[in-house]
């Protein structure tokens, strides 16, 4: 006769066995985060290469073949994704999803090229984000690509400001005013869609217990970036200054400041309720500083010391430094690391494409890798590698010849994918040896 205690013991044993099995499976399929970042980067390169090859405009190939070929390539690629889903190959699935995303973009570009369509790139991005959203369900990390293109597609860029503020707020006396007015309303609605998007995100973060970081991280980052992008929108005025009366610009500020203030207020209230540390106050500070700065620039426009390029270059640095100080003060280590990485990117991004400038960047990367290896920090080690790869690719990229650039990007992407897959295979050996020492 089996006693209750024996039954319970057997159940516990079975449970722990299942747990161990699940843990083993999870460990076997666990992704190395930074390697995945690199893999995505490499897949982007392959995708960008495809876009560049399309842009090279192969006139010798008949249009029907080009268009048909693109559809067939997309069909094969979606078949490959389906195969990886069926056979449980998570890494390959994400690589194919990434390449598919760019194939769609290439297809849109090709149609525009074949039929000589005259359209703003933002429209292509909007179409892309509307038809490629299923890929985000398959590979959520594609949100890192999807979100900015959606924002761009919504034209939350200086173009919007041109249509909305200059034509919409101040009006235009020419015959096309009616058209511009309609266009302005459309853009206005698109703009508000983005605000709604941010609000939904914040509500979700506040009330969702099971936070999916793969989804939340890119959303959080780009929502912040969008708010920060208001810098760019307002900085647009700095460029348009000579043509405009500064006093007339103030109502436009209020139009943008009002929804922002309402949104910030709601979020502040919710954060207080849930006692959550939010990144929003930082962006509020940033926007306020920007508003003050641009207002001053407008006031002193004719004799302004700073120009458009300085605004573009200095604001990211100011923002990154603010983010670093804020995160340190709030004890948010991840956000702090992110700000440091952002500062590094800024630092490297300011170099020009000369060998003299390439070397210091690589030395910086080498120092990061060395320090990381000594302190056994795999993340920082891989960060150094990623930065070095990006910097070298920036140096060798030939943007003048699109055919060469396309092949170069595809080749570089495939090379990096291969290297990463090898690294993933042998990284255990590398770091275990280090641990032994």
């Amino acid at each position, binding site marked *: 006769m089996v006693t209750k205690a024996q039954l319970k013991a057997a159940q516990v044993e079975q449970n722990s066995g299942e747990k161990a099995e699940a843990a083993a499976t999870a460990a076997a399929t666990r992704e190395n985060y930074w390697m995945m970042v690199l893999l995505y980067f490499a897949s982007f390169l392959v995708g960008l290469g495809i*876009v*560049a090859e*399309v*842009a*090279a*405009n192969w*006139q010798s190939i008949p249009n029907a073949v080009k*268009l048909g070929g*693109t*559809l067939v390539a*997309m*069909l094969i690629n*979606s078949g490959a*994704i*389906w195969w990886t*889903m*069926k056979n449980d190959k998570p890494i390959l699935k994400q690589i194919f999803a990434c390449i*598919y995303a760019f194939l*769609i*973009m290439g*297809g*849109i*570009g090709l*149609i*525009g*090229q074949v*039929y*000589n*369509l*005259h359209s703003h*790139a933002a429209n*292509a991005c909007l*179409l892309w984000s509307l*038809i*490629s959203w*299923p*890929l985000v*369900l*398959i590979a959520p990390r594609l949100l890192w690509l999807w979100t900015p293109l959606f924002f761009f597609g919504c034209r939350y860029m200086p173009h919007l400001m041109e249509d909305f503020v200059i034509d919409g707020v101040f009006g235009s006396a020419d015959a096309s005013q009616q058209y511009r007015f309609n266009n302005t309303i459309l853009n206005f609605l698109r703009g508000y869609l983005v605000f709604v998007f941010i609000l939904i995100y914040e509500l979700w973060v506040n009330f969702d217990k099971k936070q999916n970081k793969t989804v939340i991280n890119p959303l959080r980052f780009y929502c912040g970036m969008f708010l920060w992008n208001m810098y760019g929108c307002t900085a647009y005025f700095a460029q348009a200054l000579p043509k405009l009366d500064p006093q007339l610009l103030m109502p436009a500020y209020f139009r943008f400041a009002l929804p922002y203030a309402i949104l910030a207020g709601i979020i502040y209230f919710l954060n207080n309720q849930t006692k959550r540390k939010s990144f929003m106050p930082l962006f509020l500070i940033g926007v306020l500083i920007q508003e003050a700065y641009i207002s001053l620039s407008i006031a002193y426009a004719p004799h302004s010391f700073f120009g458009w390029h300085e605004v573009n270059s200095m604001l990211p640095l100011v923002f990154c430094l603010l983010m670093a100080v804020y995160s340190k003060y709030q004890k948010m280590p991840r956000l702090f690391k992110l700000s440091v990485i952002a500062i590094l990117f800024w630092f490297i991004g300011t170099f020009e494409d000369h060998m003299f400038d390439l070397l210091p960047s690589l030395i910086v990367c080498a120092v990061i890798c060395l320090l990381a290896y000594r302190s056994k920090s795999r993340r920082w080690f891989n960060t150094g590698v990623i930065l070095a790869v990006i910097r070298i690719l920036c140096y060798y990229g030939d*943007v003048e*010849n*699109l055919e060469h650039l396309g092949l170069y990007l595809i080749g570089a992407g495939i090379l990096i994918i291969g290297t990463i897959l090898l690294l993933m295979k042998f990284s255990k050996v590398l770091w275990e040896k280090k641990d032994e020492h």
Partner: protein
Amino acid sequence: MNTKVLASLLLLPIIVLAGSMLRLSYMSNFEKVEVAVQGYDPKDFFSGYYMYLRPDWDKTDCTQFADNVCPKENFNNTYTFYIKREQSEKLTQKVNAGVVTLQFSYSPGFEPIITDLFVDGTSFMEFVNTKQ
């Protein structure tokens, strides 16, 4: 979400793009009209090289349209015509010389679609092949 549903969603971009292709190819088969143009040559990464062309209604033969009136309001202010990089310089010279026209597939109520570019009355592909 179900794997089969997800997999079938992957066909969405293919269906949309194939639909666009069919619609545009239908719109390319209307009556053809030629419009004189002027412009210049830019490029960008996503599109490649193209000529940025502006209809020049003063030089356009309006007798090809109904009532001998050029329907300017049905056309955009600017158009793009995609070319290869090495062709841009020669074509720019021709555009500046004022001998380039754009051929459109045109039907009132539809957006005009570019079907060809003519240099001195020669189709673009012929122009490219003879000059290279």
